[in-house]
């Protein structure tokens, strides 16, 4: 069991990683600035949470690439500009409509794209629906797990671009859960983190 979470230290990170609800999903925490002294090979998963300042991660691009080359798994959630420090990510931001649900019968359009994927034994469509920040053009061969209303990927698994694996999403659950705002984000983490532990916490063998 070895999951490392990058801990940028904002209140929503502190609430998400240090409070009792989810603390047991993270075997170790590391500050971005301490990554150079950290042996990432000890960990099966490195999680980089929502709203990690990209310029705190950019000094570590080579280290993250080497970790992936060694079969590691990186999980990166939204609003961190992950394309600036992780490989093979093409991201298009979109304006966020925080008020879509005020219209009776409105549908944000988020859909599960791979209903047989093990993640969706833990999550329903309503658990991945709160608002949107943008979409990706994943590399050929990546598995798209969820899409926005235009069918564009918002959550995918890339185990083709490196010897390891990346789980990439534009959803930002840690920010909202850690802000005590938007119950869907807590439901998301209630399902996503057990899946991360059961399915991702092992070396990638290809």
């Amino acid at each position, binding site marked *: 069991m070895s999951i490392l979470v990058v801990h*940028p230290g904002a*209140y*929503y990170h502190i*609430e998400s990683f240090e409070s009792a609800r989810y603390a047991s999903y993270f075997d170790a925490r590391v500050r971005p600035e301490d990554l150079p002294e950290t042996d990432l090979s000890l960990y099966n998963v490195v999680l980089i949470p929502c709203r990690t*300042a990209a310029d705190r991660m950019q000094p570590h691009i080579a280290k993250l690439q080497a970790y992936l080359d060694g079969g590691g798994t990186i999980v990166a959630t939204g609003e*961190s500009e992950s394309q600036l420090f992780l490989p093979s990510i093409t991201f298009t931001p979109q304006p966020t409509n925080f008020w879509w649900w005020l219209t009776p019968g409105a549908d944000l359009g988020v859909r599960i794209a791979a209903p047989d994927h093990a993640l969706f034994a833990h999550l329903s469509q309503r658990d991945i629906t709160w608002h949107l920040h943008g979409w990706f053009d994943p590399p050929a061969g990546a598995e798209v797990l969820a899409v926005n209303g235009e069918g564009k990927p918002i959550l995918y698994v890339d185990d083709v671009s490196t010897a390891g694996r990346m789980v990439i999403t534009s959803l930002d659950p840690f920010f909202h859960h850690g802000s005590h*705002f938007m119950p869907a984000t807590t439901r998301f983490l209630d399902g996503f983190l057990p899946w991360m532990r059961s399915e991702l916490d092992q070396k990638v063998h290809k």
Partner: protein
Amino acid sequence: MTVLLIHSHYGQPPEGYVAAAAAGRLAIVRERDLTATDFAGAAGLITTTHLDQIGFLAHADAYTALLDRGGRWFFNGHMMREFVEGLDRYVPLIAPRRADYVLTRIHDHPIFGGIDQRSLEENKGVAGFYGRGHNPPPVGAIAVNGIGPERRPIDWDWARPEGGHVFSHAGNDLGGMGGETGNGALLTQRIIAWCAGELGT
């Protein structure tokens, strides 16, 4: 002496702060680049919801010295660390409903002068953006605004016994909380003026 805005997130600071910096009223410094010199030259400081609270503790000597000499700190967000003695950890509302977001002015404060607090309650008809809990006020703090029927102190101003003032706004960055009235720009200007010592307490 200037006012220091500690810029913690990646990307541009809020527009009102950029304009104030251009006018020479504010120094904007990325949190990761902060040095003791930045604090030494400041009359006051503003921190945002994205503050790296763990990293900020490394500057405890510098910000405590700023307060000790009478400086002011406007804090936005949920306090999760005891930055100076007397502060305590954020307390969220539990399963809040609409009535729990009602805002009430408890004591007048120059930052909020002439602004109807209830006008800040909603954004496009939705309450909860202003804040959803409170940072426990230290002994002697003046509650400025309360949230919910119990009027928990979501905004307070504390004259620290050892010197200086801390203003706590336990929600989203106050300068972005103009509600339906467009008062966000005014609040931003007043936050800067308060930190500079140009507004009273």
